[in-house]
């Protein structure tokens, strides 16, 4: 039984390690094998980019060698997939090789796509890649005061990022002693300041307390130097524009016509690609209407690993993915909270505390144990 994992990020790594442990007997006996194909020999802790953008982490703290995170029985190759032949059960790669499989799991992630909004890439600072986060920090350091607008595209990975970057910016400007010269203006696509109602109910008074202004039902249409225009017909002037751009899946997914916008139609409980029994998707690449977050990829990976192992052992899956998501929310002033929910149960976040902030800070380091599947 040949299992092929495409993507060595959060979802792919947890899935491959979990599966390697569950199938250790079959792998030793030569009855199963796990191969991972990825686009990089490094694994990035992406949430750390937020801290890089405000000068609180250095880029080199975000990386580990991918091989060091994987169980030794997993064959790992840096050889990005260029063609998915799902009907023939094989993929072709950049190096020209063909990899056959019995089961494939795709977890190639998503990417910020500022280029989809006219003028956005040229005029805004963003933090979704290492280079952009470092560049954003330079822009912040040069900024001496004025109006900072935060503009948010849909969909985006990490639903908490818009709020977190706003609170982190408030802290950053306070620490630099220029908070009284800054007007922080937050915008958000729907009619409240966050998609999760209880989070919005908590965040709005926090904005009021800090003097952060906000505008809801604001979807970016076009950006010009010094001015951003919304689909809803409003305009905002800015001195510094910070954006969470709309995301797409990877180009290879679109090129292979696996799903609009690079997001693959996925069964919400079994995680198979609609129409295929042996092809699965986890993480940001699914088209599921749930948060694009590391925790989503993590919980999906655990459920799917259990099902793939049980299918090999007893011929059938044993559980459904229940839609579970868990997100920390950095609330500024050394405090944090979290939201946990699934398809059936809405979140009920508690007031932010310093304790949760310290736990999140510790998690920034514990992430590597989580990727190895030890947490």
């Amino acid at each position, binding site marked *: 039984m040949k299992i092929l994992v495409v993507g060595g990020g959060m979802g792919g790594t947890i899935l491959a390690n979990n599966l390697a442990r569950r199938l250790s007997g079959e792998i030793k006996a030569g009855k199963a094998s796990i191969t991972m194909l990825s686009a990089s020999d490094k694994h990035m802790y992406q949430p750390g980019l937020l801290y890089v953008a405000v000068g609180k982490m250095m880029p080199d703290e975000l990386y580990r060698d991918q091989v060091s995170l994987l169980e030794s029985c997993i064959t790992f190759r840096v050889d990005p997939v260029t063609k998915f032949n799902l009907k023939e059960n094989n993929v072709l790669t950049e190096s020209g090789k063909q990899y056959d499989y019995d089961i494939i799991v795709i977890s190639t992630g998503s990417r910020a796509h500022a280029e*989809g909004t006219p003028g956005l890439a040229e005029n805004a600072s963003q933090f979704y890649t290492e280079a952009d986060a470092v560049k954003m920090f330079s822009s912040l350091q040069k900024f001496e005061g004025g109006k900072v607008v935060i503009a948010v595209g*849909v*969909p985006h990975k990490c*639903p908490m990022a818009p709020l977190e970057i706003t609170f982190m910016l408030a802290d950053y400007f306070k620490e630099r002693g220029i908070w009284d010269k800054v007007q922080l203006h937050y915008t958000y*696509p*729907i*009619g409240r300041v966050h*998609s*999760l*109602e209880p989070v919005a109910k908590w965040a709005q008074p926090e904005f009021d307390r800090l003097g952060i202004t906000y505008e809801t*039902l604001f*979807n970016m249409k076009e950006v010009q130097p010094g001015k951003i225009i919304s*689909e*809803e*017909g409003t305009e905002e002037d800015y001195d510094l524009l910070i954006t969470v751009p*709309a995301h797409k899946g990877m180009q290879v997914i679109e090129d292979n016509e696996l799903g*609009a*916008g690079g997001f693959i139609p996925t069964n*919400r409980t079994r995680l198979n690609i609609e129409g295929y029994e042996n092809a699965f998707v986890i993480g940001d690449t699914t088209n*599921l*209407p*749930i*948060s694009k977050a590391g925790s989503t990829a993590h919980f999906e990976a655990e459920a799917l690993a259990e099902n793939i192992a049980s299918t090999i052992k007893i011929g059938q899956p044993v559980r459904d993915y229940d*839609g579970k*998501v868990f997100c920390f929310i950095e609330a500024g002033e050394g405090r944090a909270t979290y*939201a946990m*929910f699934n*398809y*059936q149960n*809405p*979140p009920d976040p508690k007031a932010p505390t310093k304790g949760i902030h310290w736990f999140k800070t510790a998690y920034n380091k514990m992430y590597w144990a989580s990727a190895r599947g030890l947490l």
Partner: protein
Amino acid sequence: MSERKIVDAKNTFCPGPLMELIGQMKMAEIGDELEILSTDQGSAADIPEWINKVGHEMVETSENDGVWHIVVKKIK
């Protein structure tokens, strides 16, 4: 006109039905109809508010067994 596309946002809290619709509208062609399914009663008010503000068209809204079916058309 192309086929009506179903956006199944039942039993999801984040990003939620309206965010889901906004993302899908961006990918749709002018003239396309999208039918969003939602179990969140708030969507029945939020979605028409956004559609009217942006200038798309509300085609119909109905509720069946706790599921809202909201059909919208991309106009621009």
